[in-house]
């Protein structure tokens, strides 16, 4: 019997929760960074920079960004920039495009791009991520990119998606 890639519509039951528990979400994320004794947390160190970025954007969308420790995070990013200009996911790890982009996105959220050596970061990776990173760093030749949705602004305009950020 062929199963097929069916469209799976879900019926939301009438008694399903209808409120988004924003406070609880914010509390969870705010507390997440202090889980240093947790096994799974330690295992995910290889993507820490991106994890921080994901948490921060959500907090920002909820208007709760001030609850995160900006100085600690910016210091962490500084400690992760390598000689070559690239940035690693965590201290001691190798630099990588993914985490370089996440770091740049975090610094844009905090309007602190100058915390790192910008000239060094501008690196010849010609991928979508690298180009997005270059755009966020102010390159005039590249179309503007929205740092939260990480998509070109003109695409967002064309599809009518321009989020009004709470902060």
């Amino acid at each position, binding site marked *: 019997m062929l199963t097929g890639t069916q469209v799976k519509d879900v019926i939301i039951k009438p008694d399903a929760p209808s409120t988004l528990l924003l406070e609880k979400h914010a509390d969870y994320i705010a507390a997440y960074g202090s889980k240093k004794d947790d096994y799974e947390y330690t295992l995910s160190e*290889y993507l820490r920079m991106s994890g921080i970025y994901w948490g921060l954007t959500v907090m920002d969308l909820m208007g709760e960004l001030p609850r995160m420790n900006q100085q600690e995070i910016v210091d962490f990013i500084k400690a992760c920039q390598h000689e070559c200009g690239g940035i690693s996911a965590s201290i001691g790890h190798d630099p990588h495009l993914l985490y370089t982009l996440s770091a740049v996105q975090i610094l844009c959220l905090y309007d602190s791009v100058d915390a790192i050596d910008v000239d060094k970061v501008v690196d010849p990776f010609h991928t979508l991520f690298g180009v997005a990173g270059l755009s966020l760093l102010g390159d005039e030749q590249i179309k503007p990119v929205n740092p939260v949705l990480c998509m070109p602004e003109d695409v967002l305009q064309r599809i009518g998606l321009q989020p009004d950020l709470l902060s």
Partner: protein
Amino acid sequence: QHGRVKIKTTAQQEEEKRKEREKKLKIYVAARDACFSKRNEGIWDDEALQLTQQLLSSNPDFATLWNYRREILMHLETVKDKDEVQKIYEAELSFTESCLKVNPKSYGSWHHRGWVSARLPRPDWARELTLCDRCLSLDDRNFHCWDYRRMVVKMSGVPVDQELAFTDRLIGSNFSNYSSWHYRSTLLPLLHPESPDPPPHLLLKPIPIGSLVQNAFFTDPNDQSAWFYYRWLLGRAEREEMISCVYVNRDEERVAVAFSRPVNSVGLFLVLDGQPQRVEWRSVHPRFKQSPVWICNLPPGTISDITNERNLTVHWTEKHTHRDCALYTGRTESWCRDSATDQELFRSELSVEKTSVLQSELQSVKQLQELEPLNKWCLLTIILLMRALDPLGYEQEMLAHFRTLKEVDSMRSAYYSDLCSKFMIENTILKMEYAEVRVFSISDKNLTTLCHLDQLLLVTHINLSSNHLQRLPPQFAMLQCLEVLEADNNAIENLEGVYHLPKLEEVLLKNNSILKLVVYLQTLASCPKLKRLDLRGNPVTQTANVESELAELLPSVTDLLL
């Protein structure tokens, strides 16, 4: 008492678990720190291989450790002979295989395997293909495996038609294989690299384009993948990027340029009678740094003299293209435009063969639709086929099919309404062009959204009455020639797009949902020629002092209807 099993309390079990996790963490951290310190000291020995192996076995996504491992291996290449290297790398292959068993979707493991395969003195590509087959049989949508397969095929020179036969087998045994269909779509163009657009596969007469895919959706009409593949077969190549319209007006000494896609103004130059002009380009709305329409004003007096003929050229250096527009004596305005048909905007030019192929496809899918009247994919595909064949001729049938589609798949009825709106706008543009008029009339067509507004640069009158529109978005400001806006009987609450329209005289918005007028007064005030404003039947008319506020902020509006 003897022989009795001691049962632990839940608290004790919790404590044991916690101690175990703590121990696990300690071991992990010790190994990790040992790796980092060895690497910092530049040590490339067996112990380092052991340590990284231990850690990567349970955490194959720890990319830095794969990097370290590769450093060690590259060092070993320099000190061992070829046979030893072969053995080492074969051991590496089995190591990655065991990692893949733990997590078949680890970027690190697949990448490392690819790296090893490329460096193996005597690679066994057949074995690599077999690994891919095995992996795909467990999960036919594992894109890591597909990517790896593509690499193996490339490195070992597997011919395209052999891979095509592979997709035949996969699809034949299980139609629900989105990845196989996708792979197939990348292989077909490789068979005919010299074919220009439209997609070459549609021109292959000896191979019935529908057979495999038709089989698939006739057998299981609810499987999405075959339908998406089919939609791709019907697809069109990307349109050429170009300047689609240049418009000049002596009264405002204004030039408007429309492009086939949103652009920025870098590399846009204006030349008048052979002389470059220093102008400042602006997009139609401050929100847009990228826009399909750009405007500039010439210095006062440059083209205002109607007794002179002027020749204008717009250069788009980014695409090494330009467009000329002659402004004739006695004429206030002039333009140069490719029609939507010329631009193949909404459908491709069809050859006779392609038309007959598409028509027989339409017949087939219609047959299926009779057997499966509740199947949404059939209905949607029929609509797309009709759009490709004859958008105006099939208009009524299309509307009927959309009505059925919204009943059959009501969860997505908003999507279908928007899609239908888009197609109706396309048809109206085509009709307007055939009639060679500058009036765009699309009333009572259940419009829920506006699009293709960049095609309406030359329109002087627009009638959007009796639809379901909620806003006139910023893109509406592309209607640079607009004189009359009729949009009665909608649900409009947002007028952002009625912005800096230099010729706009009448705005008719009876029976809409406008409430916060103050927000839009600025935009309306930016239209210098606005004389008539009809806001009857809007909630805003119930606001106190609205009449006096409007009179004060829009002094040029002499005909205000509340």
